[in-house]
């Protein structure tokens, strides 16, 4: 289509770059999204059981979520690399 069928190679490579960036970020956001919400849910449950530990629980929740977020950030970096660098 882009090259009248003569030599699609370079166009296909660019297409795969953008398609890959979308796939990468879409699937990459699934896991961190799920994990962080479950962590927050259990923190709420813990605060309900032991309200005096609220500060400790909130801190633990945030540290856990930050670690869980790392794979989402890897996906973001790879998606941006695919779009702008490669």
């Amino acid at each position, binding site marked *: *289509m882009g090259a009248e069928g003569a030599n699609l190679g370079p166009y296909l490579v660019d297409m795969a770059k*953008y398609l890959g960036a979308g796939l990468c970020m879409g699937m990459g956001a*699934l896991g961190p999204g*799920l*994990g*962080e*919400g479950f962590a927050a849910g259990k923190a709420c449950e813990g605060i*309900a059981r032991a309200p005096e530990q609220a500060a400790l629980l909130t801190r633990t929740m945030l540290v856990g*979520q930050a670690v869980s977020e790392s794979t989402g950030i890897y996906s973001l970096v790879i998606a*941006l690399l695919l779009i702008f660098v490669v």
Partner: protein
Amino acid sequence: MEWTNDWILVARFFGAALAVGIAAFGSAYGEGYIALKASEAIARQPKASSEIVRTMLITQAVSETAGIFGLLISIILLFVAKSEGGAVFGTSLVAAGLCMGVGAIGAGIGSGQAGGAACESIGRYPKLSANVLLTTLVGQAIVQTGCIFALVVSMLLALLTKEGHNIVAVGAMVGAGWSMGFGAIGAGISTGFTAKNAVWGMSRDSSIGGVLTRTMLLGQAVAHAGAIYSLIIAFILVFSNRG
């Protein structure tokens, strides 16, 4: 194969089916879960049945939002979207349907979790129903965030003008729809779980409502980071490759 405007019609119909078909799954699952929890609660506490049924209907209405977004995009694709354009526009119509359909699954299931917990808590402690319902509705509203991102990207894909048959832009449109659609699932389901546990905690001890709501909102905000990354990637792909 020769490109004709019939392919745009095909893309509109296919996108419309994807949007409402997949989105309906999440909403229906969530609402069914609320009804299940409400039935359980009424069996345990028949005296509170009117309170429980009211809570069930209100929370089901919020859970329905995700399905209504799917319906909206479906109607836009069927009746509003332009009927002529190139391969890039055709692909972006299908991508719009995929984005909204998949993006609504998480919000439907998640707000169902929160609503179910509300019915259960009110069945146990009918006196706290006002506090519990308020927390549930705040939690459910945040659960819809990812779904609203998907609605925005889907509208951009369906309504922005895109010309030509450039295969690079075709890839970018599918990538944008996929990125935002799947990126919204995880955040939707799990922030619903957060709201569920916050509501449960509220019904145990309503005096800690403030700290619970604060923790719930903080946790939900962090959990949406992935969906926001997806939104950024989708915007970059839509706006830098319009064909």
